[in-house]
């Protein structure tokens, strides 16, 4: 029963990993940008929410509803102002820009908020749970996070497959020049992709912040989870990312069941095994 419980908890955690990894996958898929600041963006969202709550006294859900669209706008602007210029200089330039962004964000957070460890207080909702069966208890927060992640992924999937702009995102991912030929302004398309990436990473960051503590230096250690989810699932496939997140979450959870010190190591080992034996990922696809 303990093991089943571990699988259920891992599954729910995996949803959060998938939500968190989606933006990384999307930015790589559409623009070939590996965003090294991805983890830090999640942490920035957490701190921003913290500041908003202590500054305005608004309830948490209002802060989430404000922060996520704000990040979408920030994402669009970041692409147009910061990343677009470096894109023409090749993948190394964009890698360096996002690496620089990561360091700047960490230090700005350190300057403003100090190195103290914080959590986002989700109130009773964050700690309450219900009995599923026998000894399996499911927390409301992990469950809602999981459902939210699935809903967001499904929403992005519908956007990519059913709308003209979504089709253009996929077309640009296949062949940017030809996408221009049929009328795509790649700067706008890239801006939209980055906006989606930033919005999802902000949402994931807020969910992370409610379930575990964070400080200005947490970003890079979070980033590795996103990388692992993306690589395990298969680059460029949304459902692959969900699968990758779930595999990572379940592995970590089972590892913790054996020995709490095994939690992260177990995830890394599966990641390494996938890289070694199935480098294209479990679900190799190119839907995004």
């Amino acid at each position, binding site marked *: 029963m303990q093991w089943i419980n571990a699988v259920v908890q891992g599954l729910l955690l995996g949803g959060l990993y998938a939500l968190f990894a989606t933006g990384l996958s999307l930015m790589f898929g559409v623009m070939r940008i590996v965003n090294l600041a991805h983890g830090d963006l999640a942490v920035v969202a957490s701190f921003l929410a913290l500041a908003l709550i202590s500054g305005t006294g608004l309830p948490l859900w209002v802060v989430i509803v404000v922060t996520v669209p704000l990040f979408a706008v920030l994402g669009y602007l970041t692409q147009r102002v910061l990343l677009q210029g470096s894109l023409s200089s090749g993948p190394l330039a964009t890698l360096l820009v996002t690496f620089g962004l990561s360091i700047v964000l960490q230090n700005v957070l350190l300057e403003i908020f100090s190195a103290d460890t914080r959590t986002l207080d989700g109130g009773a909702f964050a700690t309450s749970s219900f009995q599923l069966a026998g000894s399996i208890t499911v927390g409301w927060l992990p469950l809602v996070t999981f459902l939210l992640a699935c809903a967001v992924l499904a929403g992005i999937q519908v956007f990519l497959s059913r709308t003209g702009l979504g*089709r*253009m995102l996929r077309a640009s991912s296949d062949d940017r020049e030809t996408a221009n030929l049929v*009328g795509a302004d*790649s700067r706008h398309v890239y801006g939209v992709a980055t906006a989606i990436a930033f919005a999802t990473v902000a949402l994931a960051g807020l969910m992370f912040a409610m379930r575990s503590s964070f400080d200005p230096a947490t970003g890079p250690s979070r980033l590795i989870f996103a990388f692992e989810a993306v690589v395990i699932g298969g680059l460029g496939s949304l459902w692959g990312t969900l699968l990758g997140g779930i595999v990572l979450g379940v592995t970590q959870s089972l590892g913790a069941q054996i020995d709490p010190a095994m939690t992260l190591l177990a995830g890394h080992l599966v990641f390494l095994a996938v890289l070694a034996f199935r480098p294209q990922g479990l679900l190799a696809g190119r839907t995004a």
Partner: protein
Amino acid sequence: MTLLSIRGLTVHHGLLRAVDGLSLEMERGEVLAIIGANGAGKSTLLRALAGLDAPTSGTVHLAGRDITRFPAHRRVSAGIALVPEGRRLFRSLTVEENLLTGAYRGRPGPWSLEAVYELFPWMPDRRRQNAAQLSGGEQQSVAIGRALLSNPDLLLIDELSLGLAPVIVRRIYGALRDIVAAGTTALIVEQDVSQAMRVADRVNCLLEGRSVLAGRPAELSAEQVERAYFGIRDGED
């Protein structure tokens, strides 16, 4: 009425002057074929017209409007569509999705998904298939359909028959006749000179980026075309 007017267009490909001071005009509703040997600058000319390669000097006017500095996506709105060399379909998209990308800018005109399906009757049955699974001729048809869905005034087709079986080429040229009949002007680059002479209202032969021969196919002798094509000057043979 003049649709396209190119004046002194020069396009560099790195250090190479791929198109060299080229001028030409196109009337609405005609088919102009650009012929010439490999490296004569045909593809570069088409890419420059579509906005993929920036010209060094010269001007391009479409229906009286200066589009010389327009990026590719704005030229689609202005009314130019290019069927690129090698078809370049989006390989992770289905046939229908590939076609629909052409309609992204939503330019009004006679071409819709239904009209393209009518032009290529095999397409509706395979619209859910991945574009990468099609044969070369089918891919070329989809690439043409995709360009048509942007409802262009000027359709540019690069290397229409390259790598296709003669029977397929004939079928696609049959479709081109319908396309022009619907009011589209076509500028095609064709390797196969005799094919170009058959379908075009006018041909223009390029050599090292310059126009060396232009005229109506009926008015040009085979010898003239051959000399222009290979760059043989008078008295050299």
